[in-house]
């Protein structure tokens, strides 16, 4: 069984190699090949899953060591995989959703002449992501971590002819790099502390390390997580990342990659458990992002950007849960999975809408689409219900659990976090309803696009709708399936550990209050966008709205402080390098030149003056010899 783990990664990797090196002759079959490899990986994943289920809860950890990667004195980095319940969950999510989105892309990218390359990149991403979740040590995880970064760079900038896309891709990579800095420092700390960075030894001996060390490590890991999962303060890239094709947004920037941060924290549970201060920071980051993303999501008129904001905020939920410790790990992952379903579904829906609307993204130019693309409407709607936590749907269970756990933190912290989580739920309800109304209800607000084509909304091809249906199915039933008999809890508990938090407020109350804020949010949204017609040109809006449209000025801050400052810094440094460092050297050279020029005058060319110097020299020589004799 173990050696299947390698295959799990090998399949999509092989796919990527074949597709990228294949050249034009593969253009015909490229997309099918890519989908095939992804599906194969999913198949292997299912087989392994069955195998795990067959085992006892305690020995559900498979381990495979391929070879020693970097053998250096006192520094052992292996290429080794570890498959346990946590990894398994991710494997299924990644390969499953991944395969669906491959299928979806077949239709979506039909008219792109670089479709083969697109599928190559997608496969590359799958391989990297699987490597990330299967690695048995932090260094290998780092490889996957950067690998997905590369894949997302390539995919965001897939339409490179658009400068905006190229810029967005670069930005995403750079911001992630800042996070990676944190990860690499964390690995160094681990190495100096434990002399290794393999999960097993480290987690086993966490107890021997001082809390200070653990806190430092944990914070660095958190920095990494912030970068990858678009948490404040490193969230700014996610919005721009929507420049990429919609399947990419669905797969990478909603379902899988952006959740890697959550994986990292949950995986490093042992470390975080040992560093309460760090955990507090994690919860704070989560809470802040939760609200931040939600607010941004409210203001955006670009449907994908709105969804991106929601992604941010949902991941905020997960991070918050992960920060709560054993109380929340399981629910973090659970919400991650359910979110994977419905958010992917939502994005695919959005994609389908754009597909029918000449790639128009401004929701204010949609409206009344429910008649024209019924399947999209239904699936999108189900996803919508799921995300706002409509009772019985998947989002309901997972989010509810998190809110409850937040209260369970106890003390004022508990109240604050719980309150924030509740508030977030309300805002989520609001902006998602807004999206829903703007897109599918109201009257037509379609505009001819730049080329002057009047949009003719139509349902997307089967290859696109089928995945949407499946995902919708998942987003409806996944939560219930997990929750009944606490299947998910039992499944993950051996890895992450679990302790039931006793919250000051009963579960019923929490649920009830959630319902209330939900209704309120939906109500407000309906009153604003449902009743009265929506202006095609966005109104100026309140100060907050305008700020939110600009990602709460976070980008402007970056631009002014980092970009401008950086430009000035580099420019001045270039000047310094040229005039000071180099100038010093050239100055000395000039000085020498001048001196020799003056000396040159001594050579006046008159034989007799040369004779004088010769004669004097002789005299001096004789004097010297005589003196030598004398002494």
């Amino acid at each position: 069984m173990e050696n299947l783990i390698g295959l799990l990664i090998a399949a999509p990797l092989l796919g990527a190699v074949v597709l990228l090196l294949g050249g034009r002759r593969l253009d015909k079959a490229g997309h099918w090949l890519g989908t095939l490899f992804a599906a194969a990986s999913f198949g292997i994943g299912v087989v392994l899953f069955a195998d795990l289920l067959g085992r006892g809860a305690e020995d559900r950890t498979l381990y495979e060591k391929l070879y020693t990667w970097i053998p250096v004195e006192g520094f052992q980095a292996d290429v080794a995989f570890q498959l346990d319940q946590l990894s398994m969950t991710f494997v299924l999510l990644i390969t499953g959703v991944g395969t669906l989105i491959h299928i979806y892309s077949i239709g979506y990218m039909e008219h792109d002449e670089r479709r083969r390359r697109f599928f190559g990149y997608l496969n590359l991403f799958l391989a990297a992501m699987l490597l990330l979740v299967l690695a048995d040590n932090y260094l290998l995880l780092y490889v996957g971590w950067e690998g997905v970064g590369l894949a997302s760079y390539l995919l965001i900038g897939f339409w490179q002819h658009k400068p905006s896309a190229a810029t967005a891709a670069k930005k995403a990579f750079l911001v992630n790099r800042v996070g990676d800095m944190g990860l690499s420092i964390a690995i160094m700390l681990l190495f100096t502390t434990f002399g290794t960075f393999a999960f097993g030894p480290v987690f086993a001996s966490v107890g021997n390390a001082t809390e200070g060390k653990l806190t430092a490590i944990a914070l660095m890991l958190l920095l990494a997580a912030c970068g990858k999962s678009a948490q404040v303060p490193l969230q700014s890239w996610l919005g721009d990342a929507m420049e990429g094709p919609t399947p990419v947004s669905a797969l990478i920037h909603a379902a899988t990659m952006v959740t890697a941060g959550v994986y990292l924290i949950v995986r490093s549970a042992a470390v975080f458990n040992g560093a309460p201060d760090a955990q507090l920071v994690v919860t704070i980051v989560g809470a802040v992002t939760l609200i931040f993303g939600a607010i941004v999501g409210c203001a955006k008129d670009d449907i994908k950007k709105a969804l991106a904001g929601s992604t941010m905020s949902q991941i905020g939920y997960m991070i918050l849960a992960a920060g709560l410790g054993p109380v929340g790990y399981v629910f973090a992952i659970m919400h991650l999975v359910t979110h994977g379903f419905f958010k992917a579904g939502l994005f695919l829906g959005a994609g389908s809408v754009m597909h029918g609307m000449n790639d128009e993204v401004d929701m204010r130019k949609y409206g009344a689409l429910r008649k024209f693309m019924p399947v999209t409407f239904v699936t999108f709607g189900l996803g919508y219900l799921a995300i706002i936590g409509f009772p019985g749907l998947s989002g309901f269970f997972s989010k509810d659990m998190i809110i409850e756990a937040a209260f369970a933190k106890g003390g004022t912290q508990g109240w604050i976090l719980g309150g924030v989580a509740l508030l977030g739920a309300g805002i989520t309800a609001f902006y998602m309803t807004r999206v829903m109304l703007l897109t599918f209800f109201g009257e037509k607000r379609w505009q001819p696009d730049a080329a002057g084509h009047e949009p003719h909304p139509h349902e997307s091809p089967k290859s696109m709708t089928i995945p949407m249906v499946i995902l919708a199915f998942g987003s409806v039933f996944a939560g219930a399936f997990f929750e009944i008999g606490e299947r998910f809890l039992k499944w993950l508990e051996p890895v992450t550990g679990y302790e039931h938090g006793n919250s000051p407020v009963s579960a019923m109350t929490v649920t009830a209050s959630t319902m209330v804020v939900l209704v309120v949010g939906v109500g407000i949204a309906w009153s604003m966008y449902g009743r009265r017609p929506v202006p095609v040109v966005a109104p100026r809006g309140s100060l907050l709205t305008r700020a939110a449209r600009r990602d709460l000025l976070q980008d402007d801050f970056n631009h002014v402080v980092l970009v401008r400052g950086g430009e000035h810094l580099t420019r001045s440094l270039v000047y310094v390098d040229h005039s000071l460092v180099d100038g010093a050297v050239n100055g000395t050279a000039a000085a020498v030149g001048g001196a020799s020029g003056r000396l040159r005058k001594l050579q006046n060319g008159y034989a007799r003056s040369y004779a004088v110097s010769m004669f004097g020299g002789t005299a001096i020589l004789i004097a010297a010899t005589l003196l030598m004799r004398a002494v």
Partner: protein
Amino acid sequence: MNPVNYLYLAALLFTIGAAGVLIRKNAIVLFMCVELMLNACNLAFVAFSRMHGNLDGQIIAFFTMVVAAAEVVVGLAIIVSLFRTRHSASVDDASLMKL
């Protein structure tokens, strides 16, 4: 009298000759000064040969004369051709060593 005086005399003449080389501009006179120096050396050699009681000194002086003769021949030839080209025998006019 101590024949060392011959050496003193030689030294004196040599120095005078050297000074002449440095002072005079006329190439011919310059040559004469060189001759003077050579002769001073010869005198010293002769005196030495007498002191050490062997003839090697004189031999050297003899060779010196031969060399001096050769030198003068060539030198004067040079001076003549120089004079032909630039109508002057002043060494300062030939200040072509400078770039």
